């Protein structure tokens, strides 16, 4: 159940435990009927709302300093869960999140996680680490570490091949297509790149993310994934016309107040 934080909004943390709501099941009298539209091959993820058990969420996306930090680093989210009845336990076969098909708790590496506030996603990604700490007599704390889908690209080897001269955004688009990443409609938001890339062949020794970083090395823009899980490529900052999205001030009025900031001297 979503949880309201006073004067902040309504928050929802959802996790995928490997179940679907309408997956096609071979030989099933109900879900295995051909030519019907309710049960489909992959089904729809049966997201589990676990918000009520979450004690703390920390999300970090992007970078702090574009002159020092590389772009294209996967966003991270860390969930702290108070597990009073061991429903999140790796050893509890009676957990509602137990996946009987796999014989394991459904929350595991690469399972989906999404976090939203008032229906707007702050983070969409996958589990990268799942740790459970037991404190006697019967307290269980679970820490779930997550990354966005750039993490998958870091674990995917790129295929070698020849390329033709093209703009950086075109190269990125074809590389993502070659590994079927961010392939849903509207999931790639690519600005027209400034960099014209040559025909240096792609070597298979690197991961997809490493190769994207090489492309970025020539562009010097940004590679990032938004809160809803969409891939973005921003070109080099050559100057563009853009409205101000938010006014922050210590002067009161309608401007957004802030508590602290640093004057960063680079």
């Amino acid at each position, binding site marked *: 159940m979503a949880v309201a934080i006073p004067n902040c909004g309504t*928050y929802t943390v959802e996790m995928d435990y490997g179940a679907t709501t309408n997956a096609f099941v071979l030989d099933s009298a109900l879900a295995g009927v051909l030519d019907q539209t309710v049960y489909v091959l992959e089904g729809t993820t049966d997201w589990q709302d676990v918000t009520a058990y979450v004690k703390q969420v920390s999300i970090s996306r992007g970078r702090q300093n574009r002159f020092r930090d590389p772009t294209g680093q996967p966003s991270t989210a860390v969930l702290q869960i108070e597990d009073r009845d061991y429903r999140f336990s790796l050893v509890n076969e009676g957990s509602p999140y137990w996946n009987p098909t796999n014989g394991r708790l459904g929350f595991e590496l690469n399972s989906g996680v999404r976090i939203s506030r008032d229906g707007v996603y702050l983070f969409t990604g996958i589990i990268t680490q799942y740790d459970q700490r037991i404190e006697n007599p019967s307290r269980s704390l679970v820490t779930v570490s997550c990354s966005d889908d750039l993490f998958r690209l870091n674990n995917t080897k790129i295929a070698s091949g020849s390329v033709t001269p093209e703009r950086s955004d075109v190269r990125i688009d074809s590389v993502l297509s070659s590994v079927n990443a961010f392939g849903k409609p509207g999931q790639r938001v690519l600005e027209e790149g400034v960099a014209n890339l040559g025909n240096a*062949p792609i*070597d298979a*020794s690197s991961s997809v993310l490493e190769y994207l970083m090489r492309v970025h090395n*020539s562009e010097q823009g940004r590679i990032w994934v938004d809160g809803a899980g969409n891939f*973005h490529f921003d070109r080099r900052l050559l100057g563009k016309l*853009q409205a101000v999205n938010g006014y922050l001030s210590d002067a009161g009025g309608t401007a957004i107040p802030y508590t602290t*900031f640093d*004057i960063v001297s680079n």
Partner: protein
Amino acid sequence: MDFSGVFIQVFTAEQEAELADYFARESGARPNDFTPTNPSVVNTVNVAIAPPIPTVGDLQPTIEYAQAIAAESVAQFGKQETPLVVTLLETLDDAGDLAGYLVRQIPAFWFGNIQIIMNGLTNAQRTIVGSLDIGSQVSVTKSFPGSTPSTVTQVMALEGISHDITPDRHIVTLYPNPSRIYTYFILDTDELDDDTKALA
């Protein structure tokens, strides 16, 4: 492309360089792009293009590169030079453009790591903060009593954002950085020759 105060030249001589794309390299040893010794000032940037694949007759192809030098900055801060980094760029002109873009002649400062407590905002303000994302442009104003000027405003682009959420509060931290984004010129409000303003 115009880079005032920056002199760009092209070299074709052989030079020790980072490995080209088709050589295996572990992540930890990968050249960290153009990170120089002191990143606050970068006044000499070397950008190479990938050399041809070695052949029987040419086992060590020549690496061509462009170099951008900001002489005034070199005179003031000493030489702050990047390593020679091999990019995937097609031509030396492209390399020259990138080298010029990466030059930072003087140290910069900006308002960063801005912390906002969502609980203290109005609904409208929370909606705005909730919509901010990487690439969004924010204007940050701070008054400094007794200082000159007494108020400083910076318009910047977000490079990062973080959220810390507990059962009773939500803290948002914005990481803006200097941008090259123009805002709309408003007649009778903005002044001419302001290089941060543009017409739609």
